[in-house]
């Protein structure tokens, strides 16, 4: 008897199945928003311990009132100017002698911060400030630090700080991770993130 070849499967409906799948995924997949601004809270403090004394010029006061208006160093300001102002304050480097800042490129104004390692940004918000404004302010302040750190990263190691952090997380990074960690620490030492949050006023 002649050998019969198996009948060919009609693959026409395969595309339908694939489309069904595709549509299902498009509809059901929700993009999980699990990224955000990472911060570290200060540990709880004893009430008896007096806060460290800081020079007034080393503190950059950012206040947000209940109408979500910004008051920076006693002057009203718009949000898009905040980043510039914070960079100017941190990078000022007005100190001399022990406080001298060799890597600062700011104005070296004597009335602004001595050294980035001394400079503190103090953020105070009202209880009725909206959370989105708070996040916007936080974002701008973190951006100021990141900008300065990127600059130092470019100057010292030829790549931005963000790239260095990305490399550190990258499993396939070819270079030496220990050395990279040290480099990151060095930049963090030059521009430490000193962001203090005061208790909100009632």
């Amino acid at each position, binding site marked *: 008897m002649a050998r019969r070849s198996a009948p060919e*499967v009609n693959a026409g409906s395969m595309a339908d199945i694939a489309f069904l799948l595709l549509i299902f995924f498009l509809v059901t997949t929700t993009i999980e928003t699990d990224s*955000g601004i990472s*911060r570290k*809270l*200060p540990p709880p403090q004893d009430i008896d311990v007096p806060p460290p004394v800081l020079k007034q010029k080393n503190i950059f006061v950012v206040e947000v009132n209940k109408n979500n208006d910004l008051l920076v160093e006693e002057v009203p300001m718009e949000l898009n100017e905040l980043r510039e102002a914070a960079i100017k304050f941190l990078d000022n480097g007005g100190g001399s002698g022990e406080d001298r800042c060799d890597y600062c490129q700011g104005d070296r104004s004597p009335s602004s911060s001595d050294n980035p390692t001394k400079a503190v940004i103090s953020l105070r918000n009202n209880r009725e400030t*909206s959370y989105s404004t708070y*996040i916007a302010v936080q974002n701008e302040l973190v951006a100021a630090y990141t900008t300065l750190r990127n600059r130092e990263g470019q100057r010292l190691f030829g790549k931005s700080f963000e790239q260095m952090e990305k490399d550190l997380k990258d499993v396939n990074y070819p270079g030496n991770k220990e050395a990279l960690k040290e480099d990151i620490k060095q930049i963090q030492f030059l521009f430490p993130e000193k962001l203090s949050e005061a208790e909100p006023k009632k």
Partner: protein
Amino acid sequence: MSKFKKKKSGELPAISTASLPDIVFMLLFFFMVATVMRQNTLMIENKLPFADQIEKLDKKDLVMYIYAGKPSSRYRASAGNTARIQLNDKFAAVEDIKPFILAERAAKREELIPFLTTALKVDGDTNMGLVGDIKNELREVQALKINYTTRQGEAKNNLK
């Protein structure tokens, strides 16, 4: 001649459906692997603010979630109109945060505890008073690593 008679043309051969179960199983397995169960059903409005200086939260099992915001319309009658905290699947008061964190810690292996992060998923319209209270509670219980979960976008989008 009749020995080599051609098959009747016109009639289609039956399609073998033997591989259909394979396809269905493949589908099934895919779903079982890929589906991430949503941990919490949200009972609050959760429109996160925008930010662009963001870091990704990599290890999902090391994240504790605290939600806050106005109760969504379904729960408004019972839970009121002001912003509330949601832990797991129910509304909670500020005092409930400490036991929640401690319970989460107890469920994790000891060596992982220092890496635990608290993700604050707070609605943009919430007042900072509530967020400040949450942060105070977290400080007291030494859960200092926090992450304000945000959407990717320019910060000025928040002010609209």
